[in-house]
């Protein structure tokens, strides 16, 4: 992993993730370069062991992959496995 500058972002948690984190949103300063790195950082932060495989992620209301870059000022939405219907 290359050295990333730190950036300030907003992270929003839903359903199971919100309950685990104890908050629905928080501002974080992170050096995570990608959505996956950020996901791992939040897992560590909130003591979660959920694998990312069936979770989804969006940045600024657009669904993205786990290799999407994180930029300063982004709002990152972390979605646990979905179950509508």
């Amino acid at each position, binding site marked *: 992993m290359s050295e990333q500058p730190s950036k300030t972002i907003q992270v929003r948690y839903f359903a199971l993730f919100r309950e685990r984190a104890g908050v629905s949103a928080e501002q974080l300063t992170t050096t995570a370069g990608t959505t996956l790195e950020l996901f791992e950082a939040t897992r560590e932060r909130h003591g979660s062991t959920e694998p990312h*495989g069936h979770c989804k992620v*969006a940045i600024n209301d657009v*669904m993205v992959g786990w290799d999407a870059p994180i930029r300063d000022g982004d709002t990152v939405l972390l979605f646990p496995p*979905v179950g*509508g219907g």
Partner: protein
Amino acid sequence: MVAIVTEAIDPAIQAKQLRNPAAGGYASFEGWVRNENEGREVRRLEYEAYEPLVITEGQRIIAEAGERWPIIAADFVHRSGLLELGDCAVWVGVAAKHRDEAFKAGRYIIDELKVRLPIWKKEHYVDGDSGWVNCERCAAHAHDDAAHTHHD
């Protein structure tokens, strides 16, 4: 209309909005809150949805159905909040010239909706416990992944 609603869904009102003189048929699916899941007695359900992405991704699913089958119109409505046994949690409706495309497109929409939209279901059990539920197809994939090298 693709929507998340907090009030009861009325399928008759929804169906009326799909009426079109060119449509020879209409197929719908209603998902209802049932009293059991995986051997546990369910007392009620709670749905959480992230509406902005349910709308954009939901419209994309309907557009995909329209590319696969010659349908005239399709909509879905999903509840959020607390639901009691028997309540309609989701309604999907498709109007088409003939029944075949209406049924097939409707099946596609409900199947995709369950695995793609940011909607979460929490079951409240009769014994007082509660838990978030994953969709069956995701759970089946998770089982497959456990048996193989993960490559996401």
